[in-house]
């Protein structure tokens, strides 16, 4: 199977098929990424498409030394940050990470509540590891942190989450 990086290089050289293949591979992971962080189906879909539009616009800036998925999640993280800033400026918009959302029946409420109680950076590291399945090095690069910091914060987040899930939040 052609690697993501080869597909990206082909796309840089004008191959539309390569882009379509990348879209197929990353559509769902990116949608899930936004969906878990924003709790909004429509915005998750919009931002997933925005991510691909950003790739189209800035494809010349991609260099093979970076993994495509790191590159994509880097864009996605920026879009999430921008979305949160936009929400913060709107008084009627829900602020920050959405913990309790009764409309979302796909996740146990207590998991969301437990995640919401984590410190922001710890939660992001934990989610990038558990859901996006990024390596410690990839997370460190994305969040501009030393890899040992990622390791210690990840353990701290897991430890805290274990206590939270074992406590009152657990059904």
């Amino acid at each position: 199977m052609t690697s993501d990086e080869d597909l990206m290089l082909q796309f840089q050289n004008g191959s539309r098929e390569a882009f379509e293949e990348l879209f197929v591979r990353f559509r769902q992971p990116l949608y899930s990424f936004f969906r878990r962080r924003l709790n909004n189906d429509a915005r998750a879909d919009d931002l997933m498409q925005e991510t691909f539009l950003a790739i189209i616009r800035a494809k010349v800036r991609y260099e093979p030394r970076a993994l495509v998925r790191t590159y994509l999640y880097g864009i996605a993280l920026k879009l999430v940050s921008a979305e949160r800033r936009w929400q913060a400026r709107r008084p009627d918009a829900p602020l920050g990470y959405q913990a309790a959302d009764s409309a979302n029946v796909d996740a146990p409420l207590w998991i969301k509540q437990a995640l919401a109680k984590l410190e922001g950076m710890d939660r992001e590291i934990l989610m990038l590891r558990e859901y996006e399945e990024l390596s410690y090095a990839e997370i460190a690069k994305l969040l501009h942190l030393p890899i040992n910091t990622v390791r210690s914060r990840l353990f701290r987040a897991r430890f805290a989450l274990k206590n939270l899930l074992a406590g009152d939040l657990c059904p």
Partner: protein
Amino acid sequence: MPINTHPVTNEDVMAYLDGELSPADAAEMAAHLAQCRTCQELAADLQIVSRQLAGWTAGVSEGDGIPQNVVAALEARAANRKKRPASIWSWRFVQQHPGALTAAASIAVLVLAGVLYSTLRSPVSQPSMEAPRAAVAEMSMPAPAPSPVAPSGRTSSTAPKGQAMMSLGMEVQQRPPSAPLVVLTAELHLTARNFDTVRSEVDRILLRFGGHIAQLDTASPTGEARSLNATLRIPSPQLDPALSELRKLGHVDGESQRGDEVTQQSIDLEARLANARHTEARLVEILRTRTGKLSDVLEVEEKLSEVRGTIEQAEAEQKSLNNRVSFATVSLRVTEDYRPPLAVGTPSLATGLRDAAVKGVRAAFDGIVGVVQGTLEAGPSVLLVALLVCLPVYFVWKKLRH
């Protein structure tokens, strides 16, 4: 979750479960886990957390295929790419060539800084002798004559325009017979701090430009400034560069230049000489061919002697004139920058305190002025340097990020 107190840390156990250990470390960890109950419990807890988190499924993105807006962007991009290469003024060009753009911006900033620096550093007002000369130099110049050497570098109001055009220290190669002849004189008054080296410097300048000393007087009165008065003869074409060198000997207190046209005088002299030579030739012919009374012969010889005296005098005048045209005369007066020592007595206490207070206030004021001046002088440079350093770093950082 138990806290592991083994040499194997909790984070190592977690990294093992995440597949982040090297094969050797992973093998060691597996062996340790097989026999360590505490670590087994920790691993189990971590796995439980992961399993619970995995229960959150985020749903499925709806729709088939690539969304229409993405397809449109893709096609627009492709069409745009086929149509034309990135224009040098386009944002796409900026994105494609950040390094080239950074280099171009750096060069532009450097050039701008250089221009600004030279503009700010150049003196605001100078004794304006060079500028008008430069302007004149760009005008068309008539061809000068070989002999006598025509002068150069004239600013005299009496010098004709054509002569002024031959200025600026250019070597005169050729001059039509009608070109004017100008005798150049200059006066230079200087005040020199380092008077001891003036004499040797004057000799060096004369040696360099092929001049000589016509007269030189020095005076060293006790308790007063020493002085040097000299009359220098410098080849006329070298007058300007020689004056430039002489000005460096000290502060210029005064300077004047003069150009006296002697063309007519030279023509008259040549005419007189030609007539006298013609008369001499006729008298010699009379003496040779005619015979007569002795008194007539003596009278002719007397006339011949007079004519020959006139010829010699005219030749001497012509030689002197040529010499004056060929060599400019510079009257140089150099005075020592002399400051007699003050006979200062022991100041009273009040005077001392007052002086100290005045000095203190003055020093504080000078300090403030110095800080302001330093900030104004160095500020733009610091900003430019910061810009030069930050721009490439910013682009490199941006590039590395992506």
